[in-house]
């Protein structure tokens, strides 16, 4: 490939129905670029979970995806309430989502652990009252 590809998306926090649109676009782009189904699936699931989190918890944010020869990097940034205890949030089944979100099929406390599971690297930088940035990388080799 040689060149570095960058994609930027604004994630609308007002509309639950449209959550995940950026992940759909990224999956399509990766398919056009000829990536394997496994890579496409891992990237799109990790990003989709992140997008859903941003809509549920943080009133939206931005998503930036960078593709180079070695890895795909996803950076999800929001100005939401922040995560007071990241290690607690990483526990499977822990969720602060309200019942309304559960009735929509999400908020089982699997999002962050799932994002970690599908990626080779994940870092959460969060400050209460300021926002959260999640950086994920998927290696290509």
């Amino acid at each position, binding site marked *: 490939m040689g060149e570095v590809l960058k994609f930027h998306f604004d994630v609308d926090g007002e509309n639950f129905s449209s959550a995940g649109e950026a*992940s759909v676009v990224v999956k399509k782009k990766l398919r056009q670029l000829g990536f394997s189904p496994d890579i496409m699936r891992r990237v799109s699931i990790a990003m*989709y979970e992140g997008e859903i989190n941003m809509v549920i918890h943080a009133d939206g944010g931005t998503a930036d995806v960078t593709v180079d020869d070695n890895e795909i990097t996803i950076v999800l940034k929001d100005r939401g309430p922040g995560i007071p205890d990241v290690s607690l949030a990483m526990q499977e089944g822990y969720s602060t989502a309200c019942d309304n979100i559960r009735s929509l*099929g999400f908020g*089982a406390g699997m999002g962050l652990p799932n994002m970690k599971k599908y990626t080779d690297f994940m870092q959460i930088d969060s400050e209460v009252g300021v926002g959260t940035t999640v950086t994920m990388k998927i290696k290509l080799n």
Partner: protein
Amino acid sequence: MKICEIQKLLNATLLCGEEALEHDVFSACCSDMMSDVLAYVKDQGVLITGLINPQVIRTASMMDMVCVVFVRSKAPTEEMIELAEACGIVLMKSDMRAYEACGHLYTSGLRGNAGKIHG
């Protein structure tokens, strides 16, 4: 199992994706929690659910599923049908309850990957 056999077994109404009815699927899962589908499902071609919102279609698409069956007489919205068409996913709806629908498919040979949890 061919997708058209699923339609027959569940006495389901096809909503979109007629061109894929002859495609084979090898396993299925059933859930109303998309969080769990994203976390535990692997290589399942069919999702059986009673949940109605566009994220059902997006979740199925992310998981490379090819068919979604809505049970308990739940009907997807026009927006969901359009989304499924764009993703190449077959949609159908059945009056059966989820347990009954799963039972029919399971006993006819469509399994769920031996109950393994891919944690």
